[in-house]
């Protein structure tokens, strides 16, 4: 895997885009405000060969109109909101902390799950976002260190597998102090860190 990291951008050149990558790039091209993609798709982006039912995003539009403009633009690329009747309902769902599901071409899977950040980690995800640049586009994601730690925190087999993959593939490009900070802050057991990441990270 050829990775280049310059500050807050990771370059993944010559990646042959799969159908999911293309769909994600197409979707994010409509977003004109701050967002980050988190969770399962990030592991796939960096080479895990697994499926996902949804692509998770935190979004942070500057105002309601900007969000509505985004909703209105969805149909131009055959996307539609699955769980709200209109823009106001969609906004209310997000405001109350629920997820908004957006589908492509009427197919339920894979769908895009959008949320407003409702806790510190979500807000930090947006503030400390990084970019992953391909030959044909850019995707925003959150700090990889916090994503790895959060997956260890979630603790399902799938999450632990993703953490193991991301750590193994990106180890040389991660900030170990940052990773240790999140692991400590999330009170992750040493045994979980050792088993998933393959080594002790003294925190």
């Amino acid at each position, binding site marked *: *895997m050829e990775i280049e990291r310059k500050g807050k951008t990771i370059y993944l050149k*010559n*990646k042959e885009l799969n159908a999911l990558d293309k769909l994600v790039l197409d979707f994010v091209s409509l977003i004109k405000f701050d967002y980050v993609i988190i969770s399962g798709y990030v592991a796939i982006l960096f*080479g895990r*060969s697994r*499926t996902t039912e949804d692509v998770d995003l935190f979004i942070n539009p500057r105002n309601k109109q900007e969000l509505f403009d985004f909703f209105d633009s969805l149909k131009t690329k055959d996307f539609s909101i699955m769980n709200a009747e209109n823009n106001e309902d969609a906004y209310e769902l997000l405001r109350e902390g629920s997820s908004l599901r957006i589908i492509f071409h009427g197919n339920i899977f894979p769908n895009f799950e959008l949320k407003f950040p409702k806790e510190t980690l979500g807000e930090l995800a947006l503030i400390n976002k990084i970019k992953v640049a391909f030959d044909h586009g850019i995707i925003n994601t959150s700090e990889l260190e916090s994503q790895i730690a959060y997956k260890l925190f979630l603790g399902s087999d799938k999450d632990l597998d993703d953490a*193991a*993959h991301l750590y193994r593939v990106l180890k040389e490009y991660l900030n170990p102090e940052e990773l240790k900070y999140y692991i400590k802050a999330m009170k992750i057991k040493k045994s979980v860190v050792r088993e998933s990441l393959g080594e002790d990270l003294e925190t």
Partner: protein
Amino acid sequence: MVKTLRPKISLKELRKEKRRNHRSNLEFIKFYADYIKKKSNKEWSSEQKRFVDMIYNIPEKSS
């Protein structure tokens, strides 16, 4: 009526097996991560594309 066997299930054994399965899966994930690290982006992503495209039947984009 056919009688089915209802053996006593040991949860301890099941948990042990679950952990064993996950450990073995983790080992494969680490092996695979090391494998793709040695490959060029073109190589590993082509392999991944075959798998992902087979799973998702995403229609060509409309734009």
